[in-house]
């Protein structure tokens, strides 16, 4: 469904963030993208919806090469890609409902959105989604009144109301506590399952990724170093992805988390 071919990004500073990455994601597959900071994970998902312009290669979403679209067509294509952000990226001074409905901006005209007169079907869907994530009673609260976990759930609603085919998820748990992190990951994976969505999830926490996804891709220095099921993530593989120096700490972390998981 999503196919990246020789996707390349070189920043103006000369840093090669992505070196001809090839990746194919079938419909309904949830994929975790792991790798050290600066490996190009954020750049990769931003090159897909072109918040970052790729410098080379192709991005095929179904039968469209996103990398070639003009601005109008790109705007329409973005509607089918929901994005969930690190630090939530909710518009803090808007209400929860406005934040969720902002996911429909690609579908409604300017005046409707300016006057906040969204179609009834959009409003109903927003309420349904908020109910699904347990935040229906918060609809008219301002986004900055919510806790971290609640904000991220609003962020999930905003992405899903777009009715996307693909979710791009950038470090969804980076600023959450361990329990909330699991709840958020579980929620994202459940929703993808319910709706048959494909998802690419950038994540630092290897153990958390292993718990929830069917496939893990390891990125290092802008190139794919590992691609396989979570069970194949051996200490050796982690060494290859994260480098020799981090070997001890990374393994330690995996074992520790397994210990916690077993104790539960």
């Amino acid at each position, binding site marked *: 469904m999503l196919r990246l071919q020789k996707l390349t990004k070189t920043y103006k500073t000369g840093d090669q963030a992505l070196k001809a990455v090839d990746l194919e994601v079938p419909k309904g597959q949830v994929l975790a993208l792991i790798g050290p900071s600066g490996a190009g994970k954020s750049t990769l998902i931003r090159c897909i*919806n072109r*918040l970052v312009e790729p410098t080379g290669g192709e991005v095929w979403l179904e039968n469209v090469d996103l990398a070639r679209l003009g601005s109008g067509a790109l*705007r*329409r*294509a*973005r*509607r089918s*890609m*929901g*994005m969930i*952000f*690190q*630090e939530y*990226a*909710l*518009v*803090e*001074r*808007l209400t929860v409902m*406005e934040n969720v409905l*902002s*996911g*429909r*901006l*690609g*579908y409604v005209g*300017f005046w409707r*959105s*300016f006057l906040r007169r969204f179609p009834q079907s959009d409003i109903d869907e927003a309420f349904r989604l908020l109910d699904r994530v347990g935040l229906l009673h918060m609809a008219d609260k301002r986004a900055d009144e919510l806790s971290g976990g609640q904000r991220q759930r609003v*962020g999930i609603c*905003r992405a899903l109301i*777009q009715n996307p085919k693909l979710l*791009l998820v950038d470090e969804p748990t980076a600023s959450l506590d361990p329990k909330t992190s699991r709840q958020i990951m579980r929620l994202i994976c459940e929703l993808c399952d319910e709706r048959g969505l494909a998802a690419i999830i950038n994540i630092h926490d290897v153990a958390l990724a292993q718990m929830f996804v069917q496939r893990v891709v390891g990125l290092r220095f802008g190139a794919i170093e590992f691609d396989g099921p979570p069970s194949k993530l051996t200490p050796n593989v982690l060494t290859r992805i994260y480098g020799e120096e981090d070997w001890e700490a990374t393994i330690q972390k995996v074992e520790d988390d397994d210990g916690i998981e077993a104790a539960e």
Partner: protein
Amino acid sequence: MSRQELQDVLGKGWRKPHFITDPLLRWGLMTGFAAYLFAAYLTIEVDWGRVYEGLDRGWQFLLAFARPDFLSRAGDIWDGLWESIVMTVAASVVGVLISIPIGLGAARNIAPLPVYLACRALVAISRALQEIIVAILLVAIFGFGPLAGFLTLSFATIGFLSKLLAEDIEAMDRSQAEAIRASGARWLQWINYGVQPQVMPRLVGLSMYRIDINFRESAILGLVGAGGIGATLNTAFDRYEYDTAAAILILIIGIVMALEYISGLIRARVQ
């Protein structure tokens, strides 16, 4: 080796490194500045005899505040004040409305380079020309009266507000705006949902502040014939009617304080 390094520094005091490391340059700059300051004060010529005479006039002026005369020129004061208020409100509204698109254009993170340069140039022109100079020019074009004052204040508002609005937009949180863009929003929707909520409190606060400034400026613009309470004030001074002048000044101070209070209330509400 690092153990040796540590041993070397243990027991020694620690001071914040100087901003200018070269002591010669540092002390040179400091003494140079002190010498310049001293020399500058020496060049100020004070005619103490004149000051002594002036003290009496100043005293008369201050005494007038104790018995301000609101009544004998009440009609003139009222007309001038009303003209100033009309000028202020009209110029502030027009100025703010024009400032918003120019402010958007002058923000580097949302405007393309040519638009940015054009808007910044306009802002620079507006800020470079002092209100009085603009007023003199506009009085020459449109004649005496509040129209020239209104145009002057609108023009000055644009320079002030566009610049500060643009700077606030440039300092906004990128990720919030990025999230709106990722949903496939049009440019205007993006501004409305991603940018406007972030800068709205500042825009409201600055607009209130500008109304305040415009009112004060309107009292000055009368001096060059651009209408408003300033004209009345000027006439009062010319006729040595300090009591009427005092009444006008008290009114101006009162209105500015009231505006300050109201703008404080509004700013607290829009946070």
